């Protein structure tokens, strides 16, 4: 996020929420969003479903999945057409506006309405509300990124904000709401095939050398392979050995059949885990690591805020801190990694990562920080951290408009698979449920996988509410309880991805062309009754 949750929920006049269901996926952020609406902020929701917060929205653009880029281009078309743009901001802070203008010229509200299956006047109203608000943030989530055009979607959000000058000030900004607790930190920490910690590009002159010097070892200069691209390479034998730390790709990655095939092709799979996950079952060695409550460390939240994680308990058995495990492997493979405490590791991070240079456990625990964490960039021991990014100047200098044309999703519905299926999160579980399904009460509330399907489609298919149905795509077939309502548009359905034997058996492994993020939000499926009625007179059909 360029801004903080505090300023965008408490100091904004309008909020543009795109492809995000914070009430379920980020509930405490959702609560603050509801407070914002109560305070009087005008909410625009852009989402293919009637998510609950849409009830509080002044406008809900219930657009067709996979059409975010067209939507954004349409918004910008209206900004220009109705002269709602921030000319001064564009002139002083950005470049390539003319190309952008040219690109969105054809995206008239009527054409966009057609593509997105929304009302042109609603789009106009939304554009006016967002553009004319003194302070208005864009908040978005996986509804924007999890498409094969996800990167273009993200750029489009930035393009909109730049065009109306809503960046670098309080209550504004472009704010991706990151998913998992430390997904921001994972990216920051260099678990990335092309970047060292702090987004230092491997191929940038001097960077590799810097780390070789810091770590005292010769490093491989070749850009690595993204995780999602690794899987096919396992089948081809290009990747032979894999160490998975706490991930469960069998459950979280698209097209489960394929994932299992890939992992099974490996020569050697090591998993560092808490539980016997579906992925762990395929491992050659399982190393029992520790959970967040059994270790010291830090998480970085969606606001780039580094906050402390503290050890509360130690459980019986023979588990080991994960950093100890990595250190041991390094040592046993010949690298003289000293045993470091998490605090010492953070000091090392700070020493090689300019944006973390001012961060240490000692400082995070200090009275100065007072439990408020530190937001990177925090470049020196006396740097207060950065609440809002791009104030006065963008990181790269001038903000660059990157025009993106709308292209349809990779897998569109056809005669055989007539429905678009999206996936997402529900309130009660998190991702693969490894943690949440250990709480009995949660399981009692949310125990079954389901598929939300439109009443019209359900009627046509003869499916009743709460009936268990079959959902199939080109990649597989699963069962789920049907939830029949108007929440999704006709022709569209939605499933949570948390459950075992759930949505990812059938999701598409088409990837974003730039980030390689899978297109979880759009695949083509067919839904059908499991058993045609045999007239047995014993079932519900009476």
């Amino acid at each position: 996020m360029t801004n903080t949750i505090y300023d965008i929920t408490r100091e904004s006049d309008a909020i543009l929420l795109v492809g995000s269901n914070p009430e379920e996926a980020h509930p405490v952020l959702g609560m603050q969003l509801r407070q914002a609406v109560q305070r009087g902020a005008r909410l625009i929701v852009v989402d293919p479903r009637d998510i609950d917060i849409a009830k509080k929205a002044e406008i809900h653009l219930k657009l067709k999945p996979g059409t975010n880029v067209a939507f954004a281009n349409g918004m910008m078309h209206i900004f220009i057409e109705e002269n709602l743009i921030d000319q001064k901001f564009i002139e002083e802070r950005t470049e390539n506006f003319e190309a952008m203008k040219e690109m969105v010229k054809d995206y008239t509200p009527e054409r966009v309405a057609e593509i997105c299956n929304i009302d042109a006047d609603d789009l106009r109203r939304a554009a006016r509300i967002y553009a004319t608000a003194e302070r208005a943030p864009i908040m978005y989530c996986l509804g924007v990124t999890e498409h094969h055009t996800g990167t273009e979607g993200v750029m489009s959000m930035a393009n909109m904000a730049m065009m109306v000058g809503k960046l670098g000030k309080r209550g504004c900004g472009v704010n991706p709401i990151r998913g998992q607790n430390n997904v921001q930190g994972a990216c920051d920490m260099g678990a990335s095939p092309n970047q060292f910690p702090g987004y230092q590009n491997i191929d940038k002159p001097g960077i590799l050398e810097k780390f070789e010097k810091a770590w005292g070892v010769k490093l491989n200069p070749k850009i690595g392979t993204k995780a999602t691209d690794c899987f096919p390479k396992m089948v081809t034998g290009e990747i032979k050995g894999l160490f998975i730390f706490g991930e469960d790709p069998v459950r979280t990655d698209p097209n489960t059949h394929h994932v299992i095939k890939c992992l099974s092709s490996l020569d050697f799979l090591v998993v560092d885990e808490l539980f016997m996950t579906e992925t762990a079952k395929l491992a050659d060695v399982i190393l029992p690591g520790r959970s967040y409550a059994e270790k010291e460390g830090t998480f970085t939240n969606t606001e780039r805020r580094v906050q402390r994680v503290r050890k509360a308990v130690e459980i019986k058995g023979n588990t080991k801190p994960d950093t100890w495990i990595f250190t041991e492997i390094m040592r046993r493979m010949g690298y003289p990694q000293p045993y470091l405490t998490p605090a010492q590791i953070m000091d090392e991070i700070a020493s090689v990562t300019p944006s973390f240079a001012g961060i240490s456990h000692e400082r995070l625990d200090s009275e100065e920080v007072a439990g408020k964490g530190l937001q990177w960039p925090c470049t020196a021991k006396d740097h207060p951290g950065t609440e809002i990014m791009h104030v006065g100047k963008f990181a790269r200098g001038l903000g660059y408009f990157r025009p993106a044309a709308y292209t349809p999703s990779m897998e569109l519905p056809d005669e055989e698979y007539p429905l678009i299926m999206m996936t997402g999160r529900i309130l009660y579980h998190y991702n693969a449920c490894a943690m949440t399904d250990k709480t009995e009460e949660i399981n009692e509330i949310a125990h079954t996988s389901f598929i939300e399907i439109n009443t019209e489609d359900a009627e046509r298919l003869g499916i009743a509410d709460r009936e268990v149905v079959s959902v199939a795509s080109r990649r597989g077939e699963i069962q789920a309880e049907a939830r029949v309502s108007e929440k999704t548009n006709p022709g569209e359905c939605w499933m949570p991805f948390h459950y075992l034997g759930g949505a990812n058996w059938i999701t598409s492994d088409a990837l974003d062309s730039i980030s390689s993020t899978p297109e979880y939000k759009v695949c083509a499926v067919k839904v059908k009754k499991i058993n045609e009625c045999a007239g047995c007179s014993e079932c519900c059909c009476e």
Partner: protein
Amino acid sequence: MVRLTIDGFPVEVEKGTTILHAAEKLGIKIPTLCYIEDLLPDGSCRMCVVEVKNNGRTKIDTACTLQVSEGDEVLTMSEKVIESRRMTLDLLLSDHNVHCFSCEANGNCKLQDYAYEYGVSETSYEGAKSGGEIDDSNKFFRYDPNLCILCHRCVNTCTQLVGRGAIDTMERGFQSIIGNGEGLWADGTCESCGNCVQACPTGALVMKRTNKYRPYQAQKRVRTTCPHCATGCQMDLIVKDGKIVDVEGADGPSNHGLLCVKGRSGSFDFVDHKTRIRQPLIKNHETGEFEEASWDDALDLVANKFTELKNQYGGDALAGFACSRSTNEDIYMLQKMVRTVFESNNTDNCARV
């Protein structure tokens, strides 16, 4: 700026400041039952009354609502004030099921604390109690109207802070209780976040798990960050006998004391869950079963096998994925391991999935 004295201590505060805040500035604590910071005062509990003299006039009013005036002489513990607070407590106790011994909130109850502090050991009134049935329908917590003092902290939390509005005061007058309007708590729009429970000053709303410990038995409270989504809520893990028994929301910069159902109730059962793997496991390829191993054996196997593969196929044939749920320090070390000993840049995290 307005100048006044509180219990004789001079203080200068901005116009519009309430007496409660002005006193806070001096470190003088005024008792409250219904007050929630940042919200318009509910003003219903009447505990925070203070005596204010100004211009020869004396009044007693609630410190949470009363704004300072130039020259106010505020007394927070005058005889009249104490008498009024005693009366407030007397009335509250007259409609309260006083069974502190078996109450989950024993030792964590503001009514109990204040009654003790003001020497109100029992009510001076006879008469009926409003009563009502315990609503046990929520999976995580229960509401006992017999212990409810109608301070509305739960309602104000749910409507104004959580923004859910799942509960409200129902019925009128003496019969007032808190509920979802019609039917049971769990039948409404409640998300089970439990922020109402944390807001409750008595035992009216308690987490069901609280019966496993007394707050004062907690051996420690550990401030940490929630392990679920990226909001980064701050919370306290409450540890008793080496086990996490409860979680409470803490005032963090991104959550301001709030938690969701996952943070409050889904973030500790798994820690010491019976299904945790507690010993290194090596798969016996003949049987297909995992067998327990020593750390040395497991780590040697891992190191040897990866070294072997690296030597045979090169570092690019190895990869290591980090977990977006783990700490920065873990992830840093993981990628360092991949880069230094796998000699590969095939490292990534689950940001994409």
